[in-house]
């Protein structure tokens, strides 16, 4: 296929070979780990800042105003200025909080996106970890974040924070199920859990179009449940500002608050990236099986660009929800999950399994 001309594997392999020739294998491993770690840190920081900027601009567009305009051209440096301000803020810790858990919570929350991001393929050959159980790893790891939120809510010694923590506990644990089940539906279709394999399987057409009705249902469920899992509106109950002032992170200031904030945005990226990988072909250009000329034109756009175009599209969709919908009530959120999404999902899995059994899926 043509898209291999933008493959990153030769570059990464040549770096690997050069390191192996000049140092010992152990040192090579350590150096590679460090490089990848630093790159991911940089990516998270820069993309997190970009997402904050994007959210403010999108929100401004919906609200018929301009958004940040003062710092830098078109306000581009606004988030950087905000970040510096957050870094310099005093870390205020209320008196009788559970100090250890209070300080631990932001780190637990921020660890999750770093773990999950490691299996995301940005472009062909640009993926840090390629497990054969990639999807399983994502679902397993992403459920850790709720512990951080619960810890923050519990340890803050504040009633609003406690309610916020408990709410998001109930909410994230519930929606985790829907996210997991809709991913499983697609795993049944793909027949593999390896993320790179799933992306490659979509070279003839994205799963959303190839998977018939069950894939469309799974996609819709995934978008709803994914929005809920990132604690964003209309499911932002954990931090419902009109009810709980700020919810679980009320008592956090400065960089600790920034951790929660950053984690939310990187989770937003991860949910969108997973939706893109599983349903919209990841970095795979838009291909239609059999149309070779059309496919060749599509291949001129690099995989990295395709990936980010799709991810930003999904992110825009999720932001759109947030800035137009009112907030649900806590019991309505649980009703939606347990009475609607979960049964639909279970039925959908059966439907997909039937489809695959009958061999109608390709």
């Amino acid at each position: 296929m043509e898209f291999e001309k933008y493959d990153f594997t030769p570059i990464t392999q040549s770096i690997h070979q050069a390191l192996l020739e000049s140092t010992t294998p152990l040192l090579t491993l350590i150096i590679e780990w460090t490089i990848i770690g630093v790159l991911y840190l940089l990516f998270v920081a820069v993309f997190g800042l970009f997402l904050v900027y994007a959210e403010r601009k999108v929100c401004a567009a919906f609200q018929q105003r301009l958004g940040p305009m003062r710092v830098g051209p078109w306000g581009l440096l606004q988030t950087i200025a905000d970040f510096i301000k957050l870094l310099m803020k005093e870390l205020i810790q209320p008196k009788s909080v559970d100090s250890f858990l209070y300080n631990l919570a932001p780190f637990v929350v921020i660890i999750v996106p770093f773990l999950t991001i490691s299996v995301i393929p940005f472009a062909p050959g640009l993926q840090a970890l390629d497990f054969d159980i990639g999807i399983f790893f994502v679902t397993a790891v992403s459920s850790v974040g709720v512990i951080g939120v619960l810890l923050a809510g519990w340890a803050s010694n504040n009633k609003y924070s406690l309610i916020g923590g408990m709410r998001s506990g109930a909410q994230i644990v519930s929606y985790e199920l829907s996210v997991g089940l809709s991913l499983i539906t697609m795993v049944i279709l793909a027949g593999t859990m390896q993320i790179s394999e799933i992306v490659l399987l979509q070279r003839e057409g994205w799963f959303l179009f190839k998977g018939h009705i069950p894939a469309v249902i799974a996609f819709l469920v995934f978008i709803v449940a994914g929005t809920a899992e990132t604690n964003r509106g209309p499911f932002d109950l954990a931090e419902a500002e009109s009810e709980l002032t700020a919810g679980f992170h009320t008592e956090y200031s400065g960089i600790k608050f920034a951790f929660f904030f950053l984690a939310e945005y990187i989770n937003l990226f991860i949910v969108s990236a997973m939706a893109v990988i599983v349903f919209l072909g990841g970095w795979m250009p838009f291909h239609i099986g059999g149309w070779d000329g059309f496919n060749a034109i599509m291949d001129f756009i690099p995989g990295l660009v395709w990936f980010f175009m799709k991810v930003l599209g999904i992110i825009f969709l999720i932001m759109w929800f947030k800035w137009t919908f009112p907030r649900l009530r806590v019991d309505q959120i649980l009703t939606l999950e347990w009475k609607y999404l979960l049964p639909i999902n279970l039925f959908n899995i059966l439907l997909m399994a039937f489809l695959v059994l009958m061999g109608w899926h390709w």
Partner: protein
Amino acid sequence: MGPQHPSTHGVLRLLVKLEGEIVHNVQPHIGYIHSGIEKMTESLSYTQIPHLTDRMDYLSAHMNNEAVSLCVENALQVEIPDRVKYIRTIMAELQRIASHQLWWCATGMDLGALTTFFYGLRDREDILDIFEETCGARLTVNYSLPGGLMFDIHPNFQRKVKEFIKKFKKKLPEYDQLLTGNVIFQERSKGVGILSKEDAIAFGVTGPTGRASGFSCDVRKHHPYSAYPLVKFNEALGTEGDTFRRYQLRIAEMWESMAIIEQLIDNIPEGDYSAKMKGVIKLPEGEYYQRVESARGEFGVFIVSDGKKNPYRVKFRSPGFSNLFTINHIAKGWKIADLVAIMATFDLVIPDIDR
């Protein structure tokens, strides 16, 4: 909750007893705004009182001023020019639309739809511009005085009001598109916080809040004043008394207000903008009461005069006060989120409650 809680819209403190998320008891604590307007008016002359009343319910400032003006005029039995009546009514209806616009955006915000806030403020700006041109102030308009008006209307007034009506008729359906039709909003508001008609009457709930429960209490209909006897309009009434009906009713009221303004704006009679009044007004001894329909309900002014140049005692009957104290009755058993929604549709303005 409060006094600095974001959804109490001012310094209102609610002592809420919760079991988990469920509200068991709500006790409003007022008194954080140390204004004491009723007491202050006792040392002011009758022409000075309107300068304070628009600071109570600052979202229906004109109606408050109008109430004091009408009360003094009735006490003195002064015949005021028709022009004043027309302009006062138009101003009051503009003020009502502006108030409902702000209420609408705050309601959306309380339910988590922040975008509504900007839609409402965008349209409210036009009315505030008209106010600014007419009397120099945007919020505490202070336009109506005993005997008439402070100034005559600006030459642009009629044109601008008509432009606004034309524009807002296109913008108001947007409100429905953004919030009313939203399935989440309907889930959040339908059947929530029901106030029965009997309770509404017993608690003295007036205005849109009372009318949503089926209590026909529109002062403009039942005790017409200014130019209201001359116009045709419907009293928006509901029966459900839930949060959604209270919401819908205020949207309907905005349409009615526009209809009232349309009937009056082209027919403002020529004449003086004020009746001939003495420099120092002295009310004859006695007790006087005047009610008007403010944006939140029946606003009443009770003046006891001992014949001097300042009142012996002034009491304001503010709608928000009666409305607020039903909250324990109807929010019991609902969740915190519903408490916020119910408070939002009560359209509370704290200085109106806490005089």
